């Protein structure tokens, strides 16, 4: 029975080989042993006497122990135990190890100055965000001595925040809460049609919202501190950087420096918003790092960028009643399905967000200080000589995020990064080119920048390192949602990618417009919400892409992501009975294909 598509389940041998190699590579001294073997004990005692920590796998009590012994025989031409590796190099059995000790080659392999100094920690994690915290707690639960360092370099405007990383402090959490604030504004408008009567003018108070959101974030920061303490993870609010192999320097807010060593390190430093590199950008512009704790209402705002950060922020700011313009250099939501991206933009445009396309700012000047002040933005057209000048209270830059990998001493210990974007390339076990250094989260080159992905990767990494697991993080068919005013949820391939990968003739795309029942009474946007699925005709009409534009898109998409992981096909979807009346049920009754050219406009109920 072939594995369901979207899953890379390798045959056992390869998995075991990988596991053996990982064990050899990630432990300074690796001893494949058997619990009753006296020669194995001799070797373990030798290392203990040298105060050198070793990791021993007892093959007589491990699953697949005999298979591992066979793999070792293939790798090293040695069938017996103990089978000893030091820093990835094969030494041999008991005799060979003692010989290497006598002639000094063992000490050389270990590194002279480390004979008498065991590492202070089993694991040090640089970065206390979604990935770092999940990894640390899992490792500690498996009995390891773990340290987490977290330090927020303040923004150019001085904004900073507590433990928890981007998601908790300046990302997903405050974003969704502000998005909700905006949706409630819309709900208030709809409510009159449902019979609610009130005389007062409904206004929005920015400061009240920010205070409530920041209070909640404060409780989360504290919660993380407590949970680290409960799991006996050492936490340092210090900036960590490598100074030597296996050693970091930690500098706290007051400039006090301490040094720490560990057997294994995990990089989880995340990213920070990019600036444009134009006059006035750092002095006068804000980014998402500043927006969620801004102590004053931003007023008339220019959002620069077309990422989901830009569109989500522009979306809720407009929903709160502010005058918002989005300046876009080329396309919206690069990397996402472009048909859906354009629909997201179109909805925003018909709901009060102005778009200036094909322009980039070249200068920001301050006309007047204040909270907010007045800024003058000069922008250049990307396709011609036109110049635009306009005044705004606030300019929010959302043009991308850069990985925090340039100033943490990676070059000192030889960790390679992608020079173009600063991200860290890793293998499918999140290991960098340096055997004792791993990386997770947003800094990974070529992987999705999402909290749940980082958490999953962090947990599985700890389980592989210390729990004897071989399960790897599955990056395929990860569902996402963009929380723009009209939400967009997706799982699997964007249509363009599916076409280039499988060929248009091998795909069938089903689609439909729909009108959420709740929108009928207030007379909101008919024929705007949209859903489509992309099916692989050559594989039983397997659903390889699912996209929905509509309210509660995140809630709708989550369940279908699990179905896709189980190998969902069009037939199975059709056999599933819908829940009525909901938006999600449209996926169970999709009949019209794009290829038929039929009209999907909704007329009646």
């Amino acid at each position, binding site marked *: 029975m072939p594995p369901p598509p979207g899953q890379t389940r390798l045959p056992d041998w390869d998995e075991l080989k990988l596991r053996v190699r990982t064990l050899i590579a990630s432990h300074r001294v690796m001893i494949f042993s058997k619990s009753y073997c006296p020669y194995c004990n001799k070797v373990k005692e030798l290392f203990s006497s040298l105060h050198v920590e070793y990791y021993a796998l007892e093959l007589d009590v491990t699953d697949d122990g005999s298979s591992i012994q066979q793999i070792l025989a293939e790798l090293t031409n040695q069938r017996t135990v103990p089978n000893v590796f030091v820093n990835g190099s094969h030494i041999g059995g008991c005799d060979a190890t003692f010989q290497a000790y006598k002639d000094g080659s063992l000490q050389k392999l270990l590194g002279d100055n480390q004979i008498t100094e065991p590492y202070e920690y089993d694991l040090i994690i640089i970065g206390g965000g979604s990935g770092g915290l999940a990894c640390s707690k899992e490792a500690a639960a498996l009995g390891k001595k773990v340290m987490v360092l977290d330090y927020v370099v303040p923004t150019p405007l001085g904004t900073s925040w*507590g433990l928890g990383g981007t998601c908790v402090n300046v990302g997903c959490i405050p974003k969704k809460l502000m998005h909700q604030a905006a949706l409630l504004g819309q709900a208030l408008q709809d409510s009159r049609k449902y019979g609610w009567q009130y005389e007062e003018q409904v206004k929005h108070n920015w400061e009240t919202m920010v205070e409530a959101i*920041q*209070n*909640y*974030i*404060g*409780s989360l*920061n*504290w919660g993380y*501190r*407590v949970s680290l*303490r*409960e799991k006996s993870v050492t936490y340092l609010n210090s900036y960590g950087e490598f100074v030597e192999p296996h050693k970091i320097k930690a500098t706290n807010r007051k400039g006090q420096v301490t040094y720490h060593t560990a057997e294994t390190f995990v990089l989880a430093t995340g990213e920070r918003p990019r600036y444009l590199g134009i006059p006035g950008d750092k002095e006068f512009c804000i980014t998402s790092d500043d927006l969620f704790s801004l102590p004053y209402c931003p007023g008339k705002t220019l959002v620069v960028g077309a990422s989901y950060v830009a569109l989500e922020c522009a979306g809720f700011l407009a929903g709160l009643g502010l005058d918002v313009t989005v300046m876009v250099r080329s396309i919206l939501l690069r990397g996402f399905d472009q048909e859906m991206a354009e629909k997201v933009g179109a909805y925003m445009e018909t709901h009060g967000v102005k778009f200036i396309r094909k322009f980039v700012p070249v200068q920001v000047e301050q006309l007047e200080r204040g909270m907010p002040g007045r800024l003058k933005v000069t922008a250049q057209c990307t396709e011609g000589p036109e110049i635009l000048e306009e005044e705004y209270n606030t300019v929010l830059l959302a043009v991308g995020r850069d990985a925090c990998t340039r100033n943490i001493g990676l070059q000192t210990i030889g960790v390679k990064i992608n020079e173009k974007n600063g991200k860290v390339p890793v293998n499918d076990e999140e290991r960098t080119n340096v055997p004792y250094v791993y990386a997770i989260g947003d800094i990974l080159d070529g992987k999705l920048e999402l909290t749940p992905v980082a958490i999953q990767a962090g947990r599985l990494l700890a389980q592989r390192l210390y729990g004897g697991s071989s399960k790897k993080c599955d990056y395929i068919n990860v569902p996402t949602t963009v929380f723009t005013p009209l939400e967009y949820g997706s799982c699997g391939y964007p249509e363009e990618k599916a076409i280039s990968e499988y060929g248009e003739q091998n795909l069938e795309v089903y689609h439909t417009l729909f009108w959420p029942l709740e929108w009928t009474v207030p007379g909101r946007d008919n024929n705007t919400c949209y859903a489509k699925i992309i099916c692989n005709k050559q594989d039983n009409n397997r659903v390889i892409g699912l996209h929905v534009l509509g309210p509660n898109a995140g809630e709708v998409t989550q369940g279908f992501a699990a179905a896709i992981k189980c190998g969902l096909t069009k037939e199975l979807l059709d056999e599933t009975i819908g829940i009525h009346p909901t938006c999600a049920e449209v996926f169970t009754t999709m009949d019209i294909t794009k290829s038929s050219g039929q009209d999907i406009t909704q007329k009646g109920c």
Partner: protein
Amino acid sequence: MAQRLALQRLLWLPTRGPLASHGRAFGTSAGRRSTFNVQDGSDFQDRVVNSPKPVVVDFHAQWCGPCKILGPRLEKLVAKQEGKVLMAKVDIDDHTDLAIEYEVSAVPTVLAMKNGDVVDKFVGIKDEDQLEAFLKKLIGA
């Protein structure tokens, strides 16, 4: 040995009165003398652990709604006790080490301290009758 200790205790007392002005206190004029904000670890040691009178320690946070209700309520009742008990306020974000040392997980957490030992504790908000009973028990016991 015992003699020397007795002498030390005699010499100590006058200079360590709880009326040493140090640290911001607030509230009503009665409150001003019986409630204070802890400044740092050694302040806590001096004014709470080594306090001759029993002290209620209110661990609170800026971001905590119930703390804002419990704080004033407790202060008012402490003031009513006419100096028999003092109240120390500790902001857990400013004094995280202290909060961790006393194993504070959720806020508000209120400890009853006598002679440097924690003799009673509660977490969460309480009404005036419950607080009154808590204080009476601390003073009486």
